[in-house]
C-alpha cells in the first residue's frame, strides 16, 4: 500500500514534536508510517505518544545498536524498512543528525535528497528558504525515493483521533554499520528557555552588549523567548556557539526577533531576516540592521531594555 515513511525522533523517552509535523506533511501525499528506532523496551511508550497525530502505523525497531553505533546503525535499519515498505517518500527532521541520516539514506537507497524544506506539497514538491531567506525555492526529487528533511516548526501539526497500530520489526544491524562506538552520551542541558529554532520570540545580543548578556536574558525571560547571539558575540566567547544566529549558525524565523547591539552584517541577517517582526536596538543610527527593522531604536540597549521590560510588566499587571 502506498505510504510515506517518517522518522519519529525522540530524546530521553519523549517523542520530538517534529514527528507530528512530519506526519501532517506526509499525510498530504499518502498514509503515514512512523519509524521509531529505540533501545529495547522503550518503543511501546514512545509509540503511544504518536496517538492523535496523522500517523497510521508505527514501525518500531528495538536495538542497543542505535545508542552504541549511532547514525550508521539507524541508516541501516531505515534502509531495510524502505526496502520492505517501499514508501513514496521518506521525511526526516532537519536536525544535525536528521540531515546526516538523510544524506546517507539517499545514497544507500538511490534516491534524491532535499534538506531544510519548510513545506512539502501533496505531489512531494518541496519549498525551501535559501540564502538566509532571500530566495524561496521549489524543487522536487526526480530519481528514486525522495528523502526530504523538514525544518522543525515549519508547519503546525494537525491533530486527529487516530490511534496508530504498532508493528515491531525484527531487524539485524549489519556489522558494516558498527564501525563507530559511542562510549558516552550527554544530552544537552535544557535551560528554562525554549530552543532557539523553535521559539516564537528570539532576543539576540551582539557586539553592543560588550559581553554582558544580562539585559538580553532578562528580556528573554520576561517574554518566554530564546536567546540568540551574533557571530561577533560567540567568537568573543561571550555566549555559547550553539546560540549563534546567522550564515554559519542557526537560521531562525520567529514571530518576533529583537536584535540588541547587533549591526546586522549579511552574515547575521542571513540567519534571521525571515522573522515576522524585527526590532533593532543599536547606538549607531547607520547600522544596517535598521534596514530590516519594523521598529528601530537608536539608543543604548542597557537603557532601552530595562525600561521596555518595566513597561511591559506594567501593562501585564
Amino acid at each position, binding site marked *: 500500500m502506498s505510504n510515506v515513511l517518517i522518522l519519529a525522533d525522540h530524546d530521553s523517552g519523549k517523542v520530538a514534536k517534529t514527528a507530528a509535523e512530519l506526519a501532517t506533511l506526509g499525510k498530504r501525499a499518502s498514509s503515514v508510517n512512523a519509524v521509531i528506532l529505540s533501545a529495547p523496551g522503550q518503543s511501546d511508550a514512545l509509540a503511544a505518544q504518536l496517538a492523535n497525530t496523522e500517523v497510521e502505523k508505527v514501525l518500531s525497531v528495538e536495538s542497543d545498536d542505535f545508542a552504541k553505533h549511532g547514525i550508521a546503525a539507524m541508516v541501516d535499519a531505515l534502509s531495510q524498512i524502505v526496502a520492505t515498505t517501499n514508501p513514496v517518500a521518506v521525511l526526516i527532521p532537519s536536525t544535525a543528525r536528521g540531515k*546526516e541520516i538523510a544524506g546517507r539514506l539517499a*545514497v544507500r537507497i538511490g534516491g534524491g535528497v532535499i534538506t531544510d524544506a519548510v513545506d512539502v506539497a501533496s505531489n512531494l514538491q518541496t519549498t525551501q528558504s535559501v540564502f538566509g531567506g*532571500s530566495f524561496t525555492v521549489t524543487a522536487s*526529487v526526480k530519481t528514486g525515493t525522495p528523502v526530504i528533511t523538514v525544518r522543525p516548526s515549519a508547519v503546525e501539526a494537525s491533530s486527529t483521533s487516530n490511534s496508530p497500530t504498532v508493528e515491531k520489526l525484527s531487524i539485524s544491524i549489519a556489522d558494516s554499520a558498527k564501525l563507530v562506538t559511542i562510549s*558516552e552520551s*550527554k544530552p544537552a542541558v535544557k535551560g528554562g528557555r525554549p530552543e532557539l529554532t523553535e521559539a516564537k*520570540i528570539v532576543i539576540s545580543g551582539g557586539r553592543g552588549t560588550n559581553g554582558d548578556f544580562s539585559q538580553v536574558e532578562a528580556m528573554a525571560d520576561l517574554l518566554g523567548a530564546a536567546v540568540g547571539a551574533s557571530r561577533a558575540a560567540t567568537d568573543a566567547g561571550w555566549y555559547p556557539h550553539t546560540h549563534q544566529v546567522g550564515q554559519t549558525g542557526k537560521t531562525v524565523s520567529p514571530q518576533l526577533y529583537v536584535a540588541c547591539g547587533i549591526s546586522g552584517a549579511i552574515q547575521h541577517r542571513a540567519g534571521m531576516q525571515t522573522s515576522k517582526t524585527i526590532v533593532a536596538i543599536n547606538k549607531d543610527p547607520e547600522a544596517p540592521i535598521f534596514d530590516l527593522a519594523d521598529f528601530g531604536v537608536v539608543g543604548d540597549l542597557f537603557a532601552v531594555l530595562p525600561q*521596555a521590560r518595566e*513597561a511591559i510588566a506594567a501593562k501585564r499587571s
Partner: protein
Amino acid sequence: MKIAICVKQVPDSWAEKKMVNGVLDRESVDAVLNDLDEYAIEEALRVVEPLNEGKETPEHTITLISMGPDRATEAIRKGLSMGADSGVLVTDPALAGSDAIATSKVLSEVIRAGGFDLVFCGTESTDARMSVIPAMLAERLGWAQLTFAGSVKVDASNSVVEIARMTESGVETMSAKFPCVVSVIEKINEPRYPSFKGIMAAKKKVIENKSLADFGISAAEVGATGAWSVVADAQARPPRDKGVKIEDSGEAGAKLADYLAEKRLV
C-alpha cells in the same frame, strides 16, 4: 598517515547572494575558501605537526581535495598557504550544477584513489548549507563517520580517532579505527592566518588537475543532467516594508513596549 581534506570555493559569506535561473550566481561575487573548511585544515595541521616535528620529509601529509572550476585553485592555494602539503582539483564542464549526491560521488572516488587514512571536512559549506557531504562520504566509502566534532584526538600509532560530537542534542564521545571521515564544528579551534613564509611556500606546492575520466566517472552521473533533484522555481523574497525608527531621548523603552503591545507580541 595520509589525511585528505575536502574543501570548497564558495561565494564570500559576507556578500549578498543572488540566484539566476534557479542556480546560485557564482560569477558576480567574490569567491573564497569556505570559512568552515578552515577549521578542518587547522585541526588536521594540529594533528600532523607534532608528529612530523624534526623530520626531514614529513611522514604525515595533508592533501586538499576540491571539485569546481579552474578558479577554485585559489581556494586550494589558501589552504596550502596555511600548511597543507598538496592539492587535487577535479574540474570538468560536466560538473556544473552537480547536487550533493554527485559531489559526494566525485569526492569519494578521489579519496579512494588517494589511499587516505582519514578525511577531514567542515560541517557544511556556507552556500548550500546541506551538511550532508561528510555523512555521504562515510556511506560511499564504507568508512566510520565521526562528524560534528568539537574536539578530535588522533592516536596515530593505534590508528584510532576519538571525537566529542557536539550538536543541539548534546555531546557524544565516540571513536573508531581508521579509516574515518571526520567533520569539525567551528568551535573546535581558531584557524591560523597564512604567514608570509606559508604563502611563498604554497606557490611551490603541487595542485593536480584532474578530470572525471581520471576517476572513471561518466558525465551523465554528475552535473545538472545527473542531478537526482530538480529546482522548479526560485523567487527573490520581496523587500521588507520600511519600518519606524526612533531616537532614544529617554522614553524609547516605553515606546518599544507600546509597539509590541499594539502588535500583540507581548
